[in-house]
């Protein structure tokens, strides 16, 4: 009846119980707050069932930032373990628990933090930047979001019921096959990723159609803001790479469920095939994350340099080139597999080549600043920090593209330092810059600059302190994922420095939380009264902040790149066009239902409760059939009068709270 599920699945180890208690406690605490404030109905009708991409974007950001705290808690445990666990001391974690923690850390940070933040910003910004009122398929967008939440629920559920994978963030076989990982951990990993991955794939399709079919009149491809270009390229990668992930995870799951032999080490299975497949998805995935970050920085550097972006066309070509090349480098993740010198040489050269378009982008950003009137607001500080750290990471990447060097540092902390350098110094800095820059557009007030600056310096210094020692340790031969090492290696000092670095990063996050709380408290002092607080360049700054539900009262006609900037330079007589009625999608609980049922189905398969998995799957199919065949009245219409009222109210609200 309940498959493999029994009371033994609850945690027994004190640290594990602590983790479970934290998750359960946070959920109860959140529920109590909502109940106390009597906000359940509001939450349901304004957010959970909303099809407005701005609200879905905000939900993505909130959940992903909470997951960042969860992933950071894992970091603290990993760093503490490696500082302490040498010689006679075994540190604070058992070897098995240590493995679960680093597997969870990597999985959460990539799939549920970085992807969540990127999709959050894409939802918030893309429709606004292309002058559209919505995404192409609003309902599908909500489904994508709730599938992401289903993944989040499963991966956190593994803390409470059962265990998580101990096979690393990519679960290489044969370790991840049933023979060597008989528990439910790998199944949790598979289904959390499978479900949220399908959500990402659907989002990819959705935003491709949005960008190619819903641009405002006059916005040709080469007049799109560069962020939209970066998202288009990133979504092309999603559409090409995520199907491979779906297929690969399915195959691994079949190996574990019905005894197939894809990746087993006997009966004709081929574990290296998994590693090829997972990196054929995994390498493009890195670019799925970094390309939108490039786009965010491109918008920010142009705004704060008061200049148009240098080399727009070459930026676009660089993005497109990276998109294509990112599928030709996956083998550099396993040069040591023994594919032969010629194969390794090819992939090594392609890896070095992909640094060229990336380098073009870095120079374009620098030239954008050249002779600009630079304003050192916080987003710009994140950008400058990014240039330094990202270039450092890029250089170490090119170093490792040489197969002979890679043989030396393969699977060492050098590699760990390299990819954190790209993900933190590239993606995360980009997201923080983006959130700071677009915060007033989303919420109507700016974040506190001083606390933001403190947070930035903590992140930059903390990052360098935490990861430069790892480069050194890697060169000294420290393998990644060590839960214990011999004191004679002389590594402990550097691990202590790295631990201090993580503490400084933690201080940075503390300042960010403080910044958020303080800025909300003092929001009336930092109101965005014009809708254009930074003297921006793209269409989203032409509408009031926070943006009304319909985005634009009138769909703008675009005549040039940075259209809003050009309009500001040549102000024209205010020709009042009459307001018109606007159609918007009606709220729907469909996405929520699909998310809950998917999480249930995933949970049931993990625990081999097959009847429940069957029931949940049939329910999903029925929901889809009913929703797609019925003639629903899926849209509401705002009349011209209502639009006028909402517009006036939005403009009034911008200035109302400000103290004279």
């Amino acid at each position, binding site marked *: 009846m309940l498959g493999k599920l029994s009371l033994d699945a609850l945690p027994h180890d004190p640290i594990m119980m602590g983790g479970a208690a934290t998750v359960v406690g946070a959920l109860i605490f959140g529920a109590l707050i909502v109940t106390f404030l009597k906000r359940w109905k509001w939450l349901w009708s304004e957010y959970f069932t909303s099809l407005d991409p701005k609200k879905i974007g905000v939900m993505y950001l909130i959940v992903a930032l909470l997951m960042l705290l969860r992933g950071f808690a894992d970091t603290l445990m990993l760093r503490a373990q490696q500082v302490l666990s040498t010689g006679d001391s075994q540190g604070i974690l058992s070897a098995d628990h240590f493995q679960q923690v680093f597997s969870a850390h990597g999985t959460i940070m990539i799939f549920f933090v970085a992807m969540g933040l990127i999709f959050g910003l894409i939802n918030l910004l893309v429709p606004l930047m292309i002058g559209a009122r919505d995404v192409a398929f609003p309902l599908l967008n909500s489904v994508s979001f709730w599938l992401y939440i289903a993944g989040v629920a499963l991966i956190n559920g593994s803390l409470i019921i059962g265990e998580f994978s101990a096979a690393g963030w990519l679960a290489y076989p044969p370790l991840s096959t049933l023979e060597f990982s008989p528990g439910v951990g790998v199944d949790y990993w598979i289904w959390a990723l499978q479900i949220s991955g399908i959500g990402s794939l659907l989002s990819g399709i959705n935003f491709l159609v949005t960008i190619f079919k819903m641009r405002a009149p006059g916005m040709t491809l080469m007049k799109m803001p560069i962020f939209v270009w970066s998202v288009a390229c990133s979504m092309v990668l999603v*559409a090409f790479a995520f199907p491979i992930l779906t297929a690969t995870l399915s195959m691994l799951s079949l190996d574990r469920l019905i005894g197939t032999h894809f990746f087993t080490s006997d*009966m004709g299975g081929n574990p290296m095939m998994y590693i090829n497949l997972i990196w054929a998805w995994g390498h493009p995935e890195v670019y799925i994350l970094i390309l939108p970050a490039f786009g965010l920085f491109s918008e920010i550097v142009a705004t704060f340099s008061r200049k148009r972006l240098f080399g727009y066309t070459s930026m676009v070509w660089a993005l497109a080139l990276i998109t294509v090349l990112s599928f030709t480098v996956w083998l550099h993740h396993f040069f040591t597999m023994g594919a032969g010198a010629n194969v390794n040489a090819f992939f090594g050269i392609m890896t070095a080549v992909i640094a060229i378009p990336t380098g073009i982008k870095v120079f374009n950003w620098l030239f954008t600043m050249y002779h600009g009137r630079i304003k050192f607001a916080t987003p710009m500080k994140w950008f400058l920090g990014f240039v330094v750290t990202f270039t450092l990471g890029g250089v170490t990447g090119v170093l490792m593209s040489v197969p002979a060097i890679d043989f030396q540092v393969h699977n060492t902390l050098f590699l760990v330092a390299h990819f954190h350098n790209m993900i933190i110094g590239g993606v995360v800095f980009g997201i923080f810059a983006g959130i700071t820059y677009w915060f007033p557009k989303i919420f109507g007030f700016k974040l506190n600059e001083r606390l933001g600056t403190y947070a930035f310096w903590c992140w930059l210094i903390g990052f360098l302190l935490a990861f430069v020692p790892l480069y050194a340790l890697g060169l000294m031969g420290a393998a990644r994922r060590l839960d214990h090492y011999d004191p004679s290696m002389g590594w402990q000092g550097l691990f202590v420095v790295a631990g201090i670095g993580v503490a400084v990063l933690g201080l940075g996050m503390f300042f960010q939380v403080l910044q958020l709380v303080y800025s909300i408290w003092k929001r009336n002092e930092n109101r965005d009264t014009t809708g254009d607080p930074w003297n921006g360049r793209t269409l989203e700054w032409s509408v009031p902040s926070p943006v009304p539900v319909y985005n634009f009262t009138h769909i703008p006609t675009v005549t040039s790149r940075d259209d809003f900037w050009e309009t500001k330079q040549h102000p024209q007589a205010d020709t009042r066009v009459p307001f018109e009625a606007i159609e918007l999608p009606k709220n729907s609980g469909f996405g929520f239902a699909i998310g809950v049922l998917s999480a249930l189905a995933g949970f049931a398969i993990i625990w081999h409760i097959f009847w429940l998995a069957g029931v949940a799957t049939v329910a999903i199919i029925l929901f889809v059939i009913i929703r797609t065949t019925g003639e629903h009245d899926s849209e509401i219409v705002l009349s011209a009068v209502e639009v006028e009222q909402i517009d006036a109210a939005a403009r009034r609200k911008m200035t109302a709270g400000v103290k004279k």
Partner: protein
Amino acid sequence: MNKTKEALARRIVSDDKVTFGFWIYLMTDCLIFASLFAVYVVQRSATAGGPSSNELFDLPFVLVETLLLLTSSFICGLMVLAAQAHRKNLVIIGLIATGLLGAGFLAMELTEFSHLISEGYGWQRSGFLTAFFTLVATHGLHISVGMLWLFVMIYRVSRVGITPATLRKLTLFSLFWHFLDVIWIFIFTIVYMIGVL
């Protein structure tokens, strides 16, 4: 008058979005199959002491199977033409015929599977059989989903007739069905024809 024209224009634009989106979906599905094909090609010789492809496949049987699917695709194409001509009854007949041929295809596939399994050559036997069963069954699963869609369409056409929305859904269905046909041609070539060489 102006209002309906506007509504119509909007509808056409939104149809355009759905069709474009569906094409992208088909391409992503194509990549799932591409992954499975790649795996099959790698695993083809990994027989682990079990039977190899030329000992197992019965080409004439699979040819009949193939012809069933191709014919169903042809009739599916005629069905869309009938839908464009707003001939409701012809559409329903076309859908039923497509479905029957699809069911015949599925029945033959399941016969082949049960035959292999009963001889002890299930997917657990070797890496080769694992890849074979997964690739062919994934296609079969898609056909099953198509059949379900087809039933829903029969119900819909008989109830509401050929509205613009129905016409679009029928067109998308036929895209899906033809796509599965193309995938099957590759399966027939790469798995069965090369398999018996």
